[in-house]
């Protein structure tokens, strides 16, 4: 068993109205970042866990996302990184 730190991105699913992202995009436009096309605001979750190897970490993290961390109806998730610590 090793100790790992895994990071997960949770983002609103494309096509679902994201008023928070739109508001941030509007604010960036106001600041002069006129090149900004689109913004989406999501969550970044860091989980520390013990596992046999990084494959087991990914599998377990995926299950955490499917069951709790992300809502399958409205959100997508992606494992951003897995590192031993």
């Amino acid at each position, binding site marked *: 068993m090793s100790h790992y730190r895994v990071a997960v991105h949770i983002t609103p699913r494309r096509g679902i*109205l994201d*008023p928070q992202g739109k508001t941030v995009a509007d604010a960036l436009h106001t600041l002069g970042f006129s090149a900004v096309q689109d913004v989406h605001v999501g969550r970044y979750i860091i989980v520390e866990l013990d596992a046999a190897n990084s494959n087991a970490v990914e599998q377990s993290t995926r299950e955490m996302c499917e069951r*709790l961390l992300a809502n399958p*109806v409205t959100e997508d998730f992606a494992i951003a990184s897995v590192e031993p610590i």
Partner: protein
Amino acid sequence: MKFGIVSFPGSNGDFDAYQSVAETLGEEAVYLWHKDHDLQGCDVIILPGGFSYGDYLRAGAIARFSPVMQDVVSFAKSGGPVLAICNGFQIACEAGLLPGALLRNESLKFVGELVRVRVETTDTMFSNRYEAGAELRLPIAHGDGRYTADSETVDRLEGDGRVVFRYIGGPADADEWWSPNGSTRAIAGIVNEAGNVLGMMPHPERAVDPLLGSADGLAVLESLLARVAV
């Protein structure tokens, strides 16, 4: 008839639900603790409004894994009536008792006001005491009330007559489809396929006496009383 009202940490509509049942409707009401596995033989379960578990992660996401929710889900799957109000609606969606999800209001603002809601079907155990098409005044108080589901699901809800309540009106110059939170097709309340779970963002339990500004919510409880066999 015995109503069980689930208290989660952060529930704030449980007392209102209790009062509306025990004082106004005049039926038996008990609180059910979220950590217990005991529905105490209740005939109807109410998942009340509030901010269970601080709305951490997503509204309702943590509460759905409360010990009591396993029993509520079994109760619902075996046909037991569940009235899920506001945060209760969010919990019921997270628990898979109802399709879709409740997202942040389109305005990004918490909305607390009396709104107009239309009864879209009286053919449910929660709405049989209303007149078809009746316009109600019910309070809402939520930040995450934008009902969202894929268009196939929403079409099915509409086609099956499972949209029970819809927001109407609003500001005088608004069109028919004004909604206070940006809900898909102004949906305010839906039932599951079997018709025994109602999720709604407006608070019928806070509109049971003219002193409260409206008594239009009482018929939800009266409908249950009329339809549910004890």
